[in-house]
């Protein structure tokens, strides 16, 4: 049962990743190129030799980007399916479709949007190689805190639901999540390594493209997961996960 769901989630991840790739390619790559051009200007001005290219820019921006987004998509799709296997029919009145969309929205907010508020995506040329270890730790700490508190608040909501009703249980969940995340953001140190003369337009558009690509990915992940459920119910009625 769970195996079938895992396959479904990974397939949905592939579908969503293809669209996210198309978006990143059209609206993200121009700003990556911009940032790299700035980086090269700086190193030329400083009299440094150009970095040798292990992988050409066109491969990085094409096949490399596609591979990276696809691998990420399949992995997130799989984790999505596992979350769905835990959550489906345990969240009170929510139908399978609503459960899938709730996980997609909570995933987008908890895994991407909230951590990005504290540690936003950065184009090449922003961020020093010396601090990459510390920045990676902080980023994953923020992601872990956000995902754990989101899970915790949803579990709290299911416990509170029969006692205080859906509206107040949901409000309580949001308050618990926002509270924990706000404290985490206060505790964790800020990171700002944007060079002083880095163009604001490049930074802004790069970050917007990053978030927008994730919005496309997570929305389509939820929708594709539910379409695949309908498809599987139509093809194999009343068998396995569909017989309930």
């Amino acid at each position, binding site marked *: *049962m*769970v*195996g079938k769901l*895992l396959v479904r989630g990974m397939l949905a991840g592939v579908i969503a990743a293809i669209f996210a790739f198309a978006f*990143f390619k059209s609206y*993200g*790559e121009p700003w*990556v190129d911009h940032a790299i051009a700035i980086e090269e200007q700086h190193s030329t001005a400083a009299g440094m030799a150009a970095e040798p290219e*292990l*992988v050409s820019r066109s*491969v*990085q*921006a094409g096949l*490399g*980007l596609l*591979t*990276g*987004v696809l*691998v*990420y998509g*399949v*992995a*997130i799709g*799989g*984790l999505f*399916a*596992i979350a769905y*296997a*835990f959550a*489906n*029919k*345990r969240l*009170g*009145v*929510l*139908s*399978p479709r609503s459960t899938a969309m709730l996980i997609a929205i909570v995933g987008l907010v908890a895994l*991407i949007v909230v*951590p*990005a508020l504290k*540690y936003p*995506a*950065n*184009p*090449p040329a922003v*961020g*020093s*190689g010396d601090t*990459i*270890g510390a*920045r*990676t*730790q902080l*980023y994953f700490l923020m992601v872990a805190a956000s995902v754990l508190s989101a899970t915790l608040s949803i579990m709290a909501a299911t416990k509170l639901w029969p006692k205080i009703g859906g509206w107040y249980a949901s409000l309580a969940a949001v308050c618990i999540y926002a509270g924990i995340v706000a404290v985490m953001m206060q505790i964790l140190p800020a990171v700002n390594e944007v060079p002083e003369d880095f163009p604001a337009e490049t930074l802004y558009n*790069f970050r917007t*493209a*990053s*978030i927008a690509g*994730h919005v496309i990915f997570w929305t389509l992940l939820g929708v594709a997961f539910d379409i695949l459920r309908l498809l599987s119910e139509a093809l194999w009625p009343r068998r396995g*996960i569909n017989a309930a």
Partner: protein
Amino acid sequence: MSAITNPNVYNSPADDAIPLGQVLPWAVFGGMMMLLSIYFVGVEEGAMSLVSSNYVHEYVHDARHLLGFPCH
């Protein structure tokens, strides 16, 4: 209309949810495989290294930046 007669409303929570014991092994194994894949896209050679060349790191360079992982 009562919720019980309405087939669109699900109202027997947890009754036929997949038992936790059945989800757990998948969650542990699947979760580890998925996190490993994300590691290769998001972290390899950025902060840590499993493959002793920059190839994986450089190959998914643009994806890592656009997906929002810390990099340089």
